[in-house]
């Protein structure tokens, strides 16, 4: 930069080009997958060190190798249709049903709260109050009401996932700006037309944000329900393995479970890409 200024007062015919190298930060030049692998190896390396030098009891923390072997064992069981697959399928059913229920209730309540003055005035305060409660604490109630089958787990999963969807939908309905509302008024649109042709599509990015938070919550709800209410799901397998101090099994079960959670999340994200094609979203950002 200073070169430019010193050259400026007396520009000559054969003055040098003002070419200079702009510094690029190192991380910008590294591909994402390499950066991600780096973090992975640091993590596993630390893990390996900790277990190798027996800084922690092997009962508490298995070695990465043991965990990998157990993951292969569990993977084989899942692929061969063993008892673990049956359990996983139960949990998947709970997640799907819970999420569907949460979407239905969340969407309906969201429209009630976001679109009607009554909902906003009279219903919203109750929703906020319930939302601040520790929802997991309701698990024993759901078990008492619905029994030890998948119903109580579906209920807890839906209960947890509903609120972010309500909030997302209500926020989405308020996203339309004054001009858009005025425009629809000047076009003589009815309330339903305004809702379905303008407010809901405008709010889709926020609605999907709610759905994504809900997708994470639904998994937590199903597993918590299984921990606290028994049954035959994946959460029960984790609980049993933990009670037997089989920590490698706990780890590998959690990893497979997180794959299911990831798939649900990715499905929502995929739907968002397809439906809200006009709204670009940064990775990791929630809106």
């Amino acid at each position, binding site marked *: 930069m200073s070169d430019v200024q010193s050259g400026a007062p007396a520009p000559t015919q054969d003055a040098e080009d003002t070419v200079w190298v702009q510094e690029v930060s190192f991380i910008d030049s590294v591909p994402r997958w390499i950066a991600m692998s780096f973090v992975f190896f640091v993590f596993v390396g630390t893990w390996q060190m900790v277990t190798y030098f027996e800084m922690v009891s092997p009962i508490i923390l298995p070695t990465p190798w043991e965990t990998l072997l157990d993951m292969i064992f569990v993977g084989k069981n899942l692929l061969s249709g063993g008892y673990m697959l049956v359990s996983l399928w139960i949990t998947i059913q709970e997640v799907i049903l819970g999420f569907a229920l949460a979407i239905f209730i969340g969407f309906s309540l969201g429209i009630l709260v976001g679109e009607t003055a009554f909902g906003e005035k009279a219903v919203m305060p109750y929703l906020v109050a319930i939302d601040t409660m520790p929802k997991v604490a309701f698990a024993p109630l759901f078990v008492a009401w619905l029994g030890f089958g998948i119903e109580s787990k579906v209920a807890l999963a839906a209960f947890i996932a509903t609120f972010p969807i309500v909030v997302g939908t209500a926020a989405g309905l308020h996203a339309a700006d004054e001009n858009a509302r*005025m425009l629809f008024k000047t076009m*003589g649109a009815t309330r339903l037309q305004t809702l379905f042709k303008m407010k809901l599509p405008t709010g889709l990015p926020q609605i999907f944000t709610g759905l994504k938070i809900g997708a994470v919550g639904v998994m937590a709800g199903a597993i918590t329900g299984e921990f606290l209410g028994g049954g035959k799901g994946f959460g029960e397998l984790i609980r049993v393995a933990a009670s037997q101090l089989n920590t490698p099994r706990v780890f590998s079960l959690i990893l497979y479970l997180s794959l299911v959670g990831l798939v649900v999340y990715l499905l929502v994200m995929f739907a968002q890409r397809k439906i809200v094609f006009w*709204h670009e979203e940064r990775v990791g950002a929630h809106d």
Partner: protein
Amino acid sequence: MNTVAVENSGSPLGEPVYQLSNVSKTYARNLVVALESVDLTLTKGSFTSVIGSSGCGKSTLLKIMAGLIPPSSGRVTLQGEPVKGTRRDIGMMFQQATLFPWKTAVENIVLPIEIRDGKAAATKALDKAHELLEIVGLKGFENVYPNELSGGMAQRASICRMLITEPAVLLLDEPFSALDELSRDMMNMELQRICREQDATAFLVTHSIQEAVILSDEIVVMKPRPGRVAEIVKVDLPRPRTLDMMTTPKFGEIVDYIRGLLDKGEGM
């Protein structure tokens, strides 16, 4: 005084399209007089601008004319019929293009038809939407989504959306004030051309004296507290107007005169 100015201005052949007489608006909420006995006549094919500092009631006036809010007193008639609510013969345009990103340009343009007459009618109106896009110079952008349009292009599309229902009057709420100055001048000339081609009656709210003068046959200068018409200034520059006219002494004279009127209001 105002009425005199109205009667001997405007294009000689134009018949009245939009008439306001003795229109007042008091907001019940805080008893603020937003508008006090406004008389205004828009003649067929004329271009009228309203200018004034904030709080002079020009947005209230526009909302009343759009049928979005009722006046507290006075008569508002468009094509001989009282304006009681929004109507399809009123077209409106805002500062933001307000195109909906999930619809293509052409789908956005037929939206007013879709809302009023349903999907089938909207499909039938597609041909007309294509014609309008050609008029505003957006041929080839029919199936493009608004994200891919520049600010000026988006406003062109929103002009088409306003025109698709063939409104009797166009209400323009600072339509190009969000654009940069170069695009804005260009869009103003486009607007003039389109209005002449369609023989449209236009009513523009603006903050720019230059913009008002270059476009208008008449300029309604308003003053605040209470919002009222200070004077209706006739602009007798020849048509079609060109951007070169902005450097003529006559143009400067009118601009100065209006600025003087607005400054007088400042003192209050």
